[in-house]
C-alpha cells in the first residue's frame, strides 16, 4: 500500500498550502470590508469580529455615499460605468468587424498574420509613453477633463486585444455554415450579421466584459486626462490621500466600491478571463 500513503502525504501538504494561500489572497479584501464597517474611532484597532469585538457602524458608507461626499462618489461611479460601457461598446464594434475580416478573408499585400501581429504590438506600448502625446492632443482639441477624451483613450487601449481575440473566436466557427448560407443566396454581409455574429455571441460577450474590466481598472489615462468632472472610481480612491494621511474607513469603503464590480464580472467570466489575459495563448 505504499503508493497510497505517499499520495495522502502529498494531499496534506497540498491542502495546507492551498488554505494558507487562500487566506493570504483573501485577507486584504476581508480586512477592507471589516475596516469599512468600523467607526473612525476604531479604525486602527485589530478587532475583526463585528458585534463581538466591535460595534459595526455604517459611518464610512454614510460619508462616502451620503450628504458629505456622496455626490462625488456617485459621479465617480457614473463616470466609471459610462466610460467602461461606452468604450467597450466602441471597441467591440470595431473589433468584431476587423476580427471577422482578418479571420475570413485573405489579404495579399500584407499577410493576415503581419496585420494581426502589428495590431497586437500596439497593446505592448507602455501606457505612460502614450499618455504624454495624448494629453497634448486632448489639450489641443480642448477635450481635457471630458468623457470623450477618456473614452477615446480606453478604446485605443483595448482595441488591439479585442481584434486579436475576435480573430480567434471567428476562426473557431466552422466556415461551412457561412458558405452554405452564401450558396443559399445570402450576401456575405448577411452571412456575417445573421450567422457568424450570433454564433460567436459567447466570445463577443466575453470580449466586452474583458474590455469593461480593463477600462474600469485603468488609472493612468484617467489621472492624466481628467482633473475634476470626469474622475473614475480608481482616481477617486487616489484622491482620498490627504496631507493628514489616510482615513482607513473611507479608503476602505471607496476601494470596495471600485473593486467589487470588476471582481464579480471576472468571476462570472472566469473561463474567458485567462484566455484574454494570456492573449489567447492559453485556452480553456
Amino acid at each position, binding site marked *: 500500500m505504499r503508493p497510497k500513503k505517499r499520495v495522502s502525504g502529498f494531499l496534506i501538504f497540498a491542502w495546507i498550502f492551498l488554505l494558507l494561500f487562500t487566506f493570504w489572497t483573501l485577507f486584504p479584501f476581508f480586512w477592507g470590508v471589516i475596516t469599512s464597517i468600523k467607526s473612525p474611532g476604531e479604525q486602527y484597532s485589530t478587532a475583526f469580529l463585528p458585534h463581538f469585538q466591535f460595534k459595526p457602524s455604517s459611518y464610512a458608507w454614510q460619508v462616502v455615499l451620503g450628504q458629505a461626499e456622496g455626490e462625488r462618489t456617485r459621479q465617480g461611479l457614473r463616470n466609471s460605468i459610462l466610460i467602461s460601457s461606452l468604450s467597450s461598446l466602441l471597441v467591440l464594434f470595431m473589433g468584431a468587424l*476587423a476580427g471577422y475580416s482578418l479571420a475570413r478573408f485573405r489579404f495579399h499585400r500584407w499577410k493576415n498574420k503581419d496585420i494581426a501581429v502589428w495590431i497586437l504590438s500596439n497593446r505592448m506600448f*507602455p501606457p505612460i509613453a502614450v499618455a504624454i502625446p495624448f494629453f497634448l492632443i486632448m489639450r489641443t482639441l480642448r477635450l481635457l477633463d471630458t468623457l470623450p477624451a477618456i473614452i477615446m483613450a480606453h478604446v485605443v487601449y483595448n482595441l488591439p486585444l479585442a481584434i486579436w481575440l475576435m480573430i480567434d473566436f471567428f476562426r473557431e466557427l466552422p466556415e461551412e455554415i457561412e458558405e452554405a448560407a452564401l450558396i443559399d443566396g445570402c450576401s456575405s454581409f448577411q452571412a456575417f450579421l445573421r450567422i457568424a455574429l450570433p454564433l460567436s455571441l459567447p466570445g463577443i460577450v466575453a470580449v466586452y466584459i474583458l474590455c469593461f474590466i480593463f477600462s474600469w481598472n485603468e488609472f493612468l489615462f484617467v489621472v492624466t486626462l481628467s482633473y475634476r468632472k470626469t474622475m473614475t472610481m480608481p482616481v477617486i480612491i487616489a484622491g482620498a490621500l490627504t496631507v493628514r494621511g489616510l482615513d482607513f474607513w473611507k479608503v476602505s469603503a471607496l476601494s470596495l466600491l471600485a473593486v467589487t464590480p470588476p471582481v464579480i464580472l471576472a468571476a462570472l467570466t472566469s473561463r474567458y478571463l485567462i484566455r484574454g489575459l494570456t492573449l489567447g495563448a492559453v485556452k480553456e
Partner: protein
Amino acid sequence: MFKGEERVRAIKVGFIVPGLLYLMLMAVFPMIWSFSLSFQRWKAATASPRVFVGLRNFYTIFFEDPRFWNSLRFTVFYVLIVVVIELFLGLLLAYILNEKIRFRNFFRVVFLFPMAAPPIGIAFMWRMLLNPDAGIMVKIMNSLGINVVRWLTDAKLTPFVLMSVDIWEWTPFMFLGLLAAFQSLPVELYDAAQVDGASRFQTFRFITFPLLLPIVVTLLLLRAIDAFKLFELVFGITGGGPGSSTESLSYYIYTVGFQYFDLGYACSLSWIFLGIVLLISNFLLQRLRKEV
C-alpha cells in the same frame, strides 16, 4: 477563406478599415508626435519657448541622468524577482489543483480576485495594511516579535515590500494560466508513465515540464512585459520613495511629464522605455504569431 469577388472585397476591406484607421489616428500618430517632441526642449511649466535640441535629451539621459539609471535598475530588478517567484508559486498551485482536489472551481474563482481588481485600489488597500503606525500587518508582525516598522521607510526594504504586493496580485495569473495548460495535457502519457512505474518527480521532470515549457515561456514574457510597466503600486504605496528607491521607469516618466511638465524630455524617456519594452515584446509576438 472566402474567395474574392467585388462585393466580398468591399466587406473584407470595409470591415478592417475602421479599426486600422482608429489605431493609426490614436496610436501611431501620437507616437510620431512624441518622437518629434523627443528632439525638443519643451518645459511647459516655464515660459521658455520650445526649441529643437537634436539628440541633447538622449545624451542627457544616458550620461547625465542618474535618476533614469536608478529607475531602470530598480524596474529590471523588480521584474526579474517577481516574475520568477510568481512562476514558482503559480506552478506549485497549478500542480496541486491539477490533482483531484475538491472545490477546485472555488479556488479558481477566489484566485481571480486580486488580478481583476483595479491595481490602484489594491495599492491603497495594501498601503493601509502596511501602514507603519496602524497597519494590521505591522501589528501582527510585532506581536510575533518581529520588528518591521521600518519597512516603508528603509530604502533597502521598501522594494521588497512592493514586490510582495505584486506577488500577491499576480501569482494567480501564473497559476490560472498554468492550470489551464496542465489540463490540456494528454492523459494517455500519464497513464503510460504510471504503468512504467515513474515517480511523481520523474513524471513531472520528463513529461509535464517539457510539454509545458512553451506555455511557461509565453506566460513569463507576458508577465515580464506587464510588470515592466509597473506604475499603480508605486503611485499608491510608496510614491517612489523613500528617496527614489522604488521609482519605476513609468513613475519616473510620469513625474517628469506631469509634475515637472518637462514634456520634451519625458518623450525622450518614453521612447527609450518603448524601445526596451518592444525588444521584449518582440519575443512574445513571434511566439504568438505562430498561433494565428
